[in-house]
């Protein structure tokens, strides 16, 4: 009985750290083919990425499957830009996304159209040349 209790205690303390080390060591080659396809834009930096970031991207890759082909395509386009942001910039982007989400569909469309127009403007080009 004492032996059984010792084994249970050992499992209790070692399993969580074992799970953590499994996640920490998830190298690019260890990912499934589906995960590799989804996270392809991050392939170059994957092995150097910190474990928390890896976990987050793996979580996103799981949800990716349930999205439409158009959404999947957009994710592929935005992945690298998002990954290069600082935590503060991500926070700012989330805040604005939530603000836009609360707007009426008409107002949302208006803002998106304004953005497209602005992107063609010399003002935008000048700003992004700096």
């Amino acid at each position, binding site marked *: 009985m004492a032996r059984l209790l010792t084994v249970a205690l050992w499992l209790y303390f070692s399993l969580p750290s074992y799970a*953590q080390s499994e996640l920490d060591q998830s190298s690019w080659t260890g990912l499934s083919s589906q995960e590799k396809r989804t996270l392809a834009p991050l392939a170059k930096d994957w092995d150097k990425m910190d474990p928390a970031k890896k976990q987050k991207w793996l979580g996103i890759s799981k949800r990716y499957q349930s999205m439409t082909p158009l959404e999947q395509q957009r994710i592929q386009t935005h992945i690298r*830009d998002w990954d290069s942001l600082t935590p503060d910039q991500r926070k700012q982007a989330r805040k604005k996304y939530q*603000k836009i989400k609360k707007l009426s569909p008409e107002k949302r469309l208006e803002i998106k159209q304004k953005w497209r127009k602005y992107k063609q403007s010399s003002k935008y080009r000048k700003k992004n040349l700096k």
Partner: protein
Amino acid sequence: MNEPELGNKIAQLLDRSLDDIEQNTLNRLQSARRTSLENYRVVETLVTTGDGPAIREGHSPRFNTRNLLSLVALLLVLASVSYWQTLQYGDENEEIDILLLADDLPINAYLDNELDVWLDS
């Protein structure tokens, strides 16, 4: 006087005093002892299990085994839950991040001050 000598002296005094106790008092003391022994029982503990029936348990080896087995089972369940939770760990922003990534506005749009002007207008 060291400790064993003191002990012996106290024992001698008690033995001598015992001889001086009246027979009536001795009888009453013996009777009280007997009653006390007859009434002695293993202390029982009541353990309630949620809304279910109460389980009456004494200090039997069977009870200890059952208790230990429950503890082992509990530890195994907790270890499994903890293992699963670590593997399933999700960032609290994961939901919003995936929606943001799937949106038709590019990421740099959210960082452009121009967007604030339109949002506030």
